[in-house]
């Protein structure tokens, strides 16, 4: 039915092959290319996991698994609230659209905070990358101090994969913030940047990673200044596609990275 409906739409151009508007097709094409980025990172991690067998580190004990499970629940719930935001937008309910978008952002922020805590714990236990600053006082007692030297692929693929996903979630929260609050979101983003930058110790990778928020605030400021607009239901739907994709990728990272490398006593 949808296919035949395509030709009923009046146009000066030929009908859309995919039966939908360009923004949505553009987002789908971006997500397809992005899925290959994550596919390559997941393959890199799985390659190491399979080829090294028992030599592969298993740093995820019960506390980590519970933490990652709660993170998964946050993302799944955020997808549900995102669906409701899209529904509210197509019904023209601006108030509920904004509230559901804010609820989605809240769940996404919860995910980032828990993920940051997980990273900090692993780094404190000795799992680190050469580019990360050393944690003072932890060198001697680190549980995985040797792992970074004997199996460097683990830290490289783990931090590469989960870091890339965390960056996507962070940019997703910012994207939704711009759609929900437009220009009002820029000062909030700058406050978040200051809190993240000044509130994290200098030996934390998040101390420097927080500058992503500053860069995002500048880029969003330029975009909103050049093309100020009220975002309609198609913009919310396209933002929703991006957000669900971030959730979708985590559905593979959680079992392949965390559950397959769980430390079971």
């Amino acid at each position, binding site marked *: 039915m949808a*296919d035949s409906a395509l030709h009923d739409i009046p146009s000066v*151009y030929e009908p859309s*092959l995919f039966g939908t508007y360009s923004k949505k097709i553009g987002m789908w094409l971006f997500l397809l290319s992005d899925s*290959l980025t994550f596919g390559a990172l997941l393959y890199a991690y*799985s390659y190491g996991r399979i080829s090294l067998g028992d030599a592969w580190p298993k740093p995820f004990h019960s506390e980590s698994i519970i933490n990652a*499970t709660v993170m998964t629940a946050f993302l799944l719930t955020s997808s549900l609230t995102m669906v409701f935001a899209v529904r509210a937008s*197509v019904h023209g309910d601006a108030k509920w659209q904004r509230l559901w978008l804010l609820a989605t952002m809240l769940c996404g922020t919860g995910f980032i905070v828990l993920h940051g805590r997980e990273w900090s714990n692993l780094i404190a236990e000795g799992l680190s990358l050469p580019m990360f600053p050393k944690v003072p006082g932890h060198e001697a007692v680190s549980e995985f101090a040797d792992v970074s030297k004997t199996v460097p692929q683990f830290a490289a693929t783990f931090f590469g994969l989960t870091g890339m996903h965390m960056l996507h979630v962070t940019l997703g929260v910012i994207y939704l913030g711009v759609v929900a609050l437009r220009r009002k979101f820029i000062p909030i983003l700058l406050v978040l940047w200051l809190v993240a930058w000044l509130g994290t110790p200098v030996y934390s990778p998040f101390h420097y990673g927080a500058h992503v928020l500053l860069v995002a605030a500048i880029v969003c400021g330029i975009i909103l200044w050049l093309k100020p607009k009220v975002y309609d239901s198609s913009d919310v739907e396209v933002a929703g596609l991006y957000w669900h994709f971030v959730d979708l990728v985590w559905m593979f990272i959680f079992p392949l990275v965390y559950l397959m490398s769980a430390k079971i006593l």
Partner: protein
Amino acid sequence: MDTTQIALAERSAEEQRHHGKAVFFWVWGALLVMTAIEVFLTYQHMQPGKMLTILLGLSFIKAALIIGYFMHLKYEVSSMKWVTMCSVVGCLILMTIFFFPDAFRILYLGVK
């Protein structure tokens, strides 16, 4: 947006207006239950190969639910479904062909 784009966006919005909330709660519940099953299996001391197969199977079911219902692909036109899914699956199969023969060769050579 021009008139064509507005008409297409309005048609997309019109399709979404007809979906009840209940189906999304069911999908969300199913995703949570499958996540709980995955975590339960982790503590069952299964063989890694068997566990990997089950976990990947559940992950693909979860991915299909998210793409179909949350990302709305189930309600798109057939050309959109086929082009998007075939292209990404094809690329992932190519990646598998390039990556995994070597990984398995290492495994069978006994390098642990």
